[in-house]
């Protein structure tokens, strides 16, 4: 067994996660506010006007971080769902449940800001292009996962069913990411990749990456806060602990 002397399982129970998350949320929230403020300042006051797109390009500072978060959060949600299925671990399913609405929100934001950017640069609010269509499907996946969970009363079955749906749907994430390479699309290619130098001015990249960090911190804060909601809500479920008798259920209602 472990020789580190740390009992990691101690931290994996809802009773331990609840206060731990409560202590972490203010820090993540404070950092998120500060970092997003710095990102907006650089994005609007330091980054120059783009030579070809004018100031419309500034939408990138919210569009790209939102789009990245929509994909990151999906993958993280699917990983928690997978751990939940593999280890039959309740807190993992709860994390997956806590992440889904934030992921859906960022997917909507990516689509909305993309539409706001598409109109002045492409002349259309929406085109049925590979990148846009696959991102729209991602939004439907998030909604489907949330609705599937809420449509099943038995908590354990709801956990497992939505976890399977989340895992199957993860195939769409690489499709979204590579769509601009695989198909001829109106959507521009990646502005920043690990392998190549960025195609934008330094201050533009800086602002975008800072906004990205800010959105990460926001996501940590808000998903941990929702995790605490889920913990409290589930504690009320009569299916927890000993099998509930009918009077117990009636009383709980």
């Amino acid at each position, binding site marked *: 067994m472990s020789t580190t002397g740390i009992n990691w399982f101690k931290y994996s129970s809802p009773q331990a996660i609840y206060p731990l998350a409560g202590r972490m949320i203010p820090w993540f929230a404070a950092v998120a506010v500060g970092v997003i403020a710095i990102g907006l300042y650089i994005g609007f006051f330091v980054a120059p006007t783009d030579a070809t797109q004018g100031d419309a390009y500034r*939408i990138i500072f919210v569009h790209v971080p939102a789009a990245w978060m929509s994909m990151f959060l999906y993958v993280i949600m699917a990983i928690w769902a997978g751990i939940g299925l593999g280890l039959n671990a309740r807190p993992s399913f709860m994390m997956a449940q806590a992440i889904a609405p934030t992921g859906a929100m960022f997917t909507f934001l990516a689509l909305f800001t993309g539409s706001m950017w598409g109109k002045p640069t492409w002349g259309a609010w929406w085109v049925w292009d590979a990148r846009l269509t696959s991102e729209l499907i991602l939004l439907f996946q998030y909604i489907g996962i949330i609705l599937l969970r809420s449509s099943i009363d038995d908590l354990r079955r709801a956990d497992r069913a939505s976890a399977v749906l989340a895992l199957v749907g993860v195939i769409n994430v690489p499709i979204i990411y590579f769509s601009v390479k695989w198909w001829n699309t109106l959507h521009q290619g990646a502005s920043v990749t690990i392998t190549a130098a960025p195609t934008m001015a330094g201050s533009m990249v800086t602002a975008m990456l800072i906004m990205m960090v800010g959105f990460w911190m926001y996501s940590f804060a808000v998903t941990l806060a929702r995790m605490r909601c889920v913990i409290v809500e589930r504690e009320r479920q009569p299916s927890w602990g000993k099998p509930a008798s009918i009077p117990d259920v009636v009383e709980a209602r």
Partner: protein
Amino acid sequence: MQWGSVAEFLAMGGYGLYVWPSFGVAALCMGGEVIAVWRRHAAASESHDES
């Protein structure tokens, strides 16, 4: 800084109509989510205390 005046800043080189709704809706969505989670926690804790 490239902005000569507040009006120039708000105009965003003629793209203000697209830039500001993008950031405005992002702020509304994120702020709204925070409030929603806050209320959900308050509601869950309250009903929890009753039982």
